């Protein structure tokens, strides 16, 4: 009798095991700046799929360096959150390391997004769920009722603000990377239809050409510095400091991107009303109020080849979950704009994010460096420019050398 009971229990347990989905542990390297609604989506996927996601947080300060360093050791996550720019993608050696997602349903629903991002040589490797990072000028509405529309306006505003004792533009040289934003904004005018970026990537122009737009951008930046338009602690200040200075009215403007909105909210003590009352966002370039956009790392996922069939299947399920029916739910919760055309805009979007969308719809140009490999050294060169160790021409010459090094390594045509 006891033996029969044992067999019955064993059979019923075996039956249970056969019907329950096998739990797979997926490793996801993600940006520490992932907003709460995105983190919530990871949990929802776990709940729905029965799989487990182990989050490996990569600090957003130095995100590219740290990801590359981990990547270089040969370590591979099942899911990688990373930049969708072609330059960022080339540095991952996608043909060798990433799974080709061409043909997935979300691509056709994304308009022409993947023409400019997340793909190399006609193969799509990325699943972009986040609205592009929109680079422009955050400004304090109380200090600056009329925001600048060009660099000439910026210089004029700088002189007026300085005389009233306000820091005109707050730069966060201590975080290093934010200092490259203003020169990139300057170039939007010259890079319409990505013309300048293509010329550099195709080697028909160089960054260091005499009178090149790039040298002009660095020169405009150097002039702002010489005119005293930046904060005194430009070398040591971190990007969190810049957000705080803007919200509290110590500074009038900060050049940043739209994924910094959570940091802006944090600087206002989590009070969206304070942000909306004080902060606006506009486009800026050398001559027109254009915004610069770049597909950002937040919510851009890649599936590295791991060789484990079960994990690879579960990772693809994750991408299908993020771009499937749950996407509308994510957009509604995150109050960001969708990249899938059939998903409606969210309701109750903050005023500053509405400004971002308005500026984006008014004229958006892809960042000139999106397709150019080897541009990672720009931020370090900006540090030297700020310290007065290099002039714009010398900085452009050195950066061109780094671009050449990377372009040759990547085997780009024309190099």
């Amino acid at each position, binding site marked *: 009798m006891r033996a029969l009971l044992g067999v019955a229990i064993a059979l019923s347990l075996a039956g249970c095991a056969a019907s329950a989905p096998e739990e797979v542990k997926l490793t996801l390297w993600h940006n520490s700046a992932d907003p709460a609604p995105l983190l919530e989506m990871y949990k929802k996927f776990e709940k729905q799929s029965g799989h487990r996601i182990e989050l490996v947080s990569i600090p957003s300060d*130095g995100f*590219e*360096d*740290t990801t*590359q*360093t981990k*990547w*270089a050791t040969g370590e591979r996550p099942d899911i990688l959150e990373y930049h969708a720019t072609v330059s960022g993608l*080339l*540095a*991952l*050696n996608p043909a*060798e390391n990433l799974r080709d997602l061409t043909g997935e349903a979300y691509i056709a629903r994304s308009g022409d997004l993947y023409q400019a991002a997340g793909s190399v040589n006609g193969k799509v490797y990325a699943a972009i769920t986040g609205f592009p990072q929109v680079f422009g000028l955050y400004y304090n509405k109380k200090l600056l009722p009329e925001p600048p529309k060009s660099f000439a306006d910026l210089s004029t505003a700088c002189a007026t603000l300085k005389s009233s004792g306000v820091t005109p533009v707050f730069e966060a*040289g*201590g975080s*290093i990377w934010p200092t490259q934003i203003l020169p990139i904004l300057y170039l939007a005018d010259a890079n319409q239809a990505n013309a300048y970026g293509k010329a550099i990537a195709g080697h028909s122009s160089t960054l260091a050409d005499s009178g090149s737009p790039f040298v002009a951008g660095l020169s405009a930046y150097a002039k702002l510095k010489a005119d005293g338009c930046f904060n*005194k*602690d*430009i*070398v*040591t200040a971190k990007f969190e400091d810049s957000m705080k200075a803007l919200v509290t009215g110590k500074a009038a403007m900060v050049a940043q991107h739209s994924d910094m909105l959570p940091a802006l909210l944090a600087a206002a003590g989590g009070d969206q009303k304070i942000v909306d009352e004080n902060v606006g966002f506009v486009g800026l370039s050398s001559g027109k109020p254009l915004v610069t956009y770049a597909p950002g790392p937040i919510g851009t996922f890649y599936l590295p080849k791991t060789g484990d069939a079960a994990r690879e299947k579960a990772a693809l399920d994750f991408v299908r979950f993020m771009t499937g029916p749950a996407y509308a739910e994510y957009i509604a919760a995150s109050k960001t704009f969708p990249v899938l055309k059939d998903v409606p805009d969210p309701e109750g979007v903050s005023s500053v994010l509405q400004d971002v969308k308005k500026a984006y719809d008014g004229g958006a140009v892809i960042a000139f460096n999106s397709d150019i*490999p*080897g541009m*990672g*050294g720009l931020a*370090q060169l900006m*540090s*030297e420019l*700020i*310290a*007065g*160790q*290099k002039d714009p021409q010398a900085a452009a010459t*050195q950066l061109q*050398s*780094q671009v050449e*090094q*990377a372009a040759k*390594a*990547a*085997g780009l045509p024309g190099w």
Partner: protein
Amino acid sequence: MRNNRAAPPWAHRWALPAMVLVTVFFVAPFLLNVRFAFSSWTSFRAEITWNGLENFGTLIDQDLLANAVTVTVLYAVLCMAIQNTVSLSLALALQRTSRINTIFRSAFFLPTLISPLAAGYIWRGLLAPDGAVNSFLGIEWAWLGEPSTALLVVAFIDAWKWSGLITLVYIAGLNSIPRSLLESATVDGAGPWTRFRRVVFPMLAPALTFNVAVTLVGALSAYDVIAATTGGGPGDHTRALNVVMRQQWGQGFFGSASALGFTVTLLVIATAVPLVWWLRRREVAG
């Protein structure tokens, strides 16, 4: 009187564990990795080919190598000088074992237990233009942002971090000096300064050898404190070899990064071997 007794034939066996560790964790990785310094290894493609001295040439063309070597050597000399001066002074002050000295020795040793990155972040906060140090002094100075002070300040932070350990070695050295020798010098009429110069300092030679070598070689491979405080800035004023290596690595130029790692190793060997040889000769001569 020299000790002329030959070492017993089995004496070298005691060095075996150390030799195994050095071989496994230093010599073997070095030999296995040195080839990458002369390779085209990047994140952009899978093939790795021999490219001779091209990585070094690229680093020179991009104005990275010479500056990094200069910053590294300058930083190492500053760290060595500050740490040994501070630690020897502390050791002389805290040599006698008493309750109060034990408390002070522990207090000065505490920073050694803190992670270098954490120490760097703490000091970055304290030395910020609106930080505690400037508030206390009533001045406005970007200690880590001014080219004239950044490297020196980072060297001081490194000294603050490690001086407790170096002090202990000097105290051990001071306590090994025979009391009779100092008493004889006193009877012969030597004052405190003469006793220090003619008896104490020469007798401290083994401790000095260890401390100078450790501080200099340690600082040649500096990274963590610099990364946490200045990140290599302002400009490239604190961009030591390992900081540039990390930046090259981060951009996917692994061959160039390996070339910088190779340069650090060469610098350490080229400095440590003659230095220890010279200091040991000085000990024997003393």
